[in-house]
Each structure stands twice: as structure tokens, then as C-alpha cells.
């Protein structure tokens, strides 16, 4: 049994328990999720209030080299008055779609590269796009900066930066999840 974080008054919980978590067990769960289930206990149903069998998340994709993945992001202006807790402000100013082909996947971050070939706004206020392909030789450092002076983003007074970034920087980056982000910078 692996003890998971306990949902509180709001019904949610999130965390990464370590007790009982071994490589052998995780490999079995990944390989045969149907052999395992999650349940949640409460005061009314101490033996279990809800339960469900684990399965592959249908929304998760396995991306292999040569495959194309489409990323879609919403753009907001940034309120960074609290640098520790930046938040979106105002209305959505655009949507960006990028088609990225994974070139290589390796054990180290520098072995992961992607070529992203299309960036465009789909907010109905004009398109901005590039046909230029770009390879992220070092996904942690390299960025592709598009000219924000054209199309809709002139009014926003910003620029677009498009990069590949590790979500979790605390785990040594090996086999981490990489995703594509879009950045709008205010002047």
C-alpha cells in the first residue's frame, strides 16, 4: 500500500509520497496499472468512500522521436508585482499554437531536442506566424524569439519567446517532462 496525500476540506490533495515507493513497484504499476486501485477513506466510510482502478491516462501522449505534437497556450499579460507569485491579469490577449517535432530523446537534457515549425495567434485579431524551423540544441538555454512588433502583439507592446523548459527542475532533469511555453513580456 502507498499512502497518498489526504484530500482536505476542499476535496483536493497533491503531493509526492516516498514511503513504499520503489523502482520495482513503479515499473509494475506503469506496466500493469489495472492491478492497482486508488481509494479515499473518510469518517463516514472508514473502509473507503470512493475507489477506482488505475489506467493509462487517455490524455497523456507517448511522444517518440519524429512524432509531431501540438501545443496550445493561452496568453495573458503578466502581473509580476509579487515576483514569487506571478499571476495572469486582464483578459486573454491571444492563443498560440505550435507544432513541434521531437528530434531526439536521451537520458540527459541536452539529448532532448525539438523542432517547432509554426507559431500563430488564433485570437481573431490577426495572425502572426513563422515558417522558420528551429532546433533547440539545448532546451534549457536556447530560445526562439519572434518579432513581437508585427501583428497583434505590437499593441501589447511585448515580444514572444518560445522555448522548451523542464517543468521540474529539482529532479536532475533526467526523464523530466518537457513542454513548450510561450512568453509575453511587457515593456
Amino acid at each position, binding site marked *: 500500500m502507498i499512502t497518498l496525500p489526504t484530500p482536505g476540506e476542499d476535496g*483536493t490533495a497533491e503531493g509526492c509520497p516516498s514511503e513504499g515507493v520503489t523502482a520495482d513497484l513503479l515499473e509494475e504499476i506503469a506496466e500493469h496499472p489495472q*492491478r492497482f486501485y*486508488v481509494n479515499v477513506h473518510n469518517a463516514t466510510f472508514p473502509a473507503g468512500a470512493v475507489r477506482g482502478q*488505475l489506467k493509462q*491516462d487517455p490524455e497523456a*501522449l507517448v*511522444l517518440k522521436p519524429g512524432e509531431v505534437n501540438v501545443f496550445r497556450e493561452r496568453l495573458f499579460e503578466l502581473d509580476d508585482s509579487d515576483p514569487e507569485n506571478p499571476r495572469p491579469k486582464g483578459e486573454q490577449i491571444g492563443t498560440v499554437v505550435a507544432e513541434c517535432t521531437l528530434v531526439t530523446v536521451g537520458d540527459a537534457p541536452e539529448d532532448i531536442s525539438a523542432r517547432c515549425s509554426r507559431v500563430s495567434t488564433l485570437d481573431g485579431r490577426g495572425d502572426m506566424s513563422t515558417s522558420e524551423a528551429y532546433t533547440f540544441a539545448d532546451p534549457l538555454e536556447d530560445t526562439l524569439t519572434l518579432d513581437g512588433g508585427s501583428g497583434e502583439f505590437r499593441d501589447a507592446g511585448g515580444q514572444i519567446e518560445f522555448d522548451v523548459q523542464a517543468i521540474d*527542475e529539482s529532479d536532475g532533469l533526467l*526523464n*523530466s517532462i518537457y513542454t513548450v511555453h510561450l512568453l509575453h513580456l511587457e515593456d
Partner: protein
Amino acid sequence: MLRRDGRVINYEEDSLVQFPGSAFLRANLSGESEIDEDGKRSAGDPNGRGTAHVELFLDPVELCATLRVRNIKLPAAAAHIHRGRAGQTVRW
């Protein structure tokens, strides 16, 4: 979701990207799926619903879970991953 370095405004992913050495799992939780010690089905809260998203990483070894439950008495008392197939009563 905001990136940790604080540069990103906001983004929304249409899909998760899974690399070798990781797995994304999900469980849809309900009271009907609960089995009591005698093997009786629908032993949980008949109104209870929820989801569990479980992410597995092998290098380094890590398991992360996000739980959302509703229509049950809260706060919950505990949450677990057990070994057992659907309909089975297993104490592990």
C-alpha cells in the same frame, strides 16, 4: 499553471508529453466501485465521485499524485494506492 522561474504568464496544455521512464495514470473514483471486506460491491458513498492523477518517474524514482473528490464527507481520513484488481478485496 505558472512556471517556477516566474517568467511565464499563463499557459494551458492540450496534451501531456510522456518521455521514456515516466507514466501518467488516472483513476476515476466512485462509491459504487468500493468493495467491503466481505466482497460486497457499492460499499462506498453512493454519491461519491473523484479523480486521481498519478505520475510515475523512474529516474529518479518518484510518484506524485493529485486527488480530487466530491460528494463525500470531508476532510478525508486517508488515501491509498492498493494492489488489487477491480472488484477484488485486497489488503495491501
